[in-house]
């Protein structure tokens, strides 16, 4: 059984030999690569704390076998800021006080980045709430989260329009 894989993680190519095919992307990131920003909440696809982008799409990394994602391009919370400049979604979470304990926040932010990229919700708060329902917040910061995603959507949506123009 060949257990060697190649992944691009936050722009960096990594060649990895897995010790076991059971390793999930979540455990690989946290235990092998020390990228502990991605959180393990339920480990069963119910809470969204482990959300990352794989080939540009948000998924639950706890329900993804690393071996099956050989060749994938992965973005985690560690890769979204540009040096000292926060990603607009990160900045909006701070502006709108969209967290309390912070445990779910990396997953919320990655999910919001994925949502904005999907372009299905716009800045409609009801669609944002529905499209963020895969991310639970035990502290109940949902009002701030919705506002933060609305604001980030406006910023990123405008950026996208400017680039297209």
């Amino acid at each position, binding site marked *: 059984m060949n257990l060697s894989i190649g992944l691009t993680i936050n722009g960096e190519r990594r060649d990895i030999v897995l010790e076991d095919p059971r390793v999930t992307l979540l455990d690989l990131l946290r235990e092998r690569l020390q990228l502990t920003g991605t959180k393990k909440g339920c480990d069963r696809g119910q809470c*969204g704390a482990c959300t990352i982008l794989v080939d540009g799409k948000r998924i639950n990394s706890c*329900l993804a076998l690393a*071996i099956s994602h050989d060749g994938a391009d992965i973005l985690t919370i560690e890769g979204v800021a540009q040096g000292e400049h926060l990603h607009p979604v990160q900045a909006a979470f701070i502006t709108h006080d969209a967290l309390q304990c912070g445990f779910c926040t990396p997953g919320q932010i990655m*999910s919001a980045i994925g949502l904005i990229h999907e372009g299905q919700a716009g800045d409609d708060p009801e669609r944002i*709430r529905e499209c963020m329902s*895969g991310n639970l917040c035990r502290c109940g910061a949902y009002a701030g989260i919705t506002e933060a995603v609305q604001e980030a959507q406006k910023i990123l949506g405008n950026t996208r329009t400017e680039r297209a123009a």
Partner: protein
Amino acid sequence: MNRFDYVRPTTLAEAVTAAAAPGAAYLASGTNLLDLMKGNIARPSRLVDITRLPDLDGIETLSDGSLRIGALVGNADLAHDAEFAKTYPAIAEALLSGASAQLRNAATVGGNLLQRTRCGYFYDTASRCNKRTPGSGCDALGGDNRLHAILGWSESCIATHPSDFCVPLAAFDAVVEIEGKNGRREVALEALHRLPGDAPEHDSVLAPGELIVAVRLPASARAFARHSRYLKVRERNSYAFAIVSIAAGLVVENGTIKEARLALGGVAPKPWRARAAEAQLVGSAAGPGAFGRAAQVALSEAKPSGDNAFKIELAQRLIVRALAAAAAGTPDRIPALPASPFSTPAGALHV
């Protein structure tokens, strides 16, 4: 999670051969399978990773007007395909009402069809469950069974099939293409899932090693595009399985129903097509009288499997609601909260 052998074939023939080994299971995205493996409910000795197989991720219109959807097409990709959503709006709405955005991004068409029940006793390895451990008994009978089946159940199993996607697929006569060691065969989606009888461990008619490669929608399904809806009652209004769901499609001419399609989810061990109710609707005026009579017919054989008699009336009421919504016309855009019976065409806030 048990140890397993992992293989990643690159051709369909290799995959089918690899999966012929006893204890083998196919792996697509694994959103359900890995969850079951983490809970020790599924213990495959080999995973046959089908994600690199060619030609399973396309959506194509065939010369006879049918639509062929590859088994590896993602649930979100299918629902957000503009042409698909316009032509099969109830199917897109069902897809978007299921799971979360993250799971819909990962989950595949074939995997959705073969996902297993969410009966709590099936998931709890300390409980008796004939589906998980044949012959062990059923702790759902006489247990916490508010959400269990009211149609098609047996004394050996009262679990429901959890898929939203399968409900409109059953209504609109979808066909499943299956590859096995003896070649290709086709099964109507309505006949894919088995009733439990005394062998609830077999969810479907697939033989060991068989693989779903595509789902086809016949050209006849297009006729319902202007009058079709999927409605779903849940314990919470997003990211929850159905207590009861309804897929409804109508062809209406001058106020008279020319054709009808109706299927129920969350009520039976399989997506439940209500053919007698469809026949009842045809020729009637599209209105509350006909919808109510169809609802009565659809549930005429229902009986509670426990503390769930309420689901019979709930299903009847949701049928009336779904048929009324379908008759009113498919909305231009899927509501903010897909399939919610509380959504209004005007989009009034409800969460």
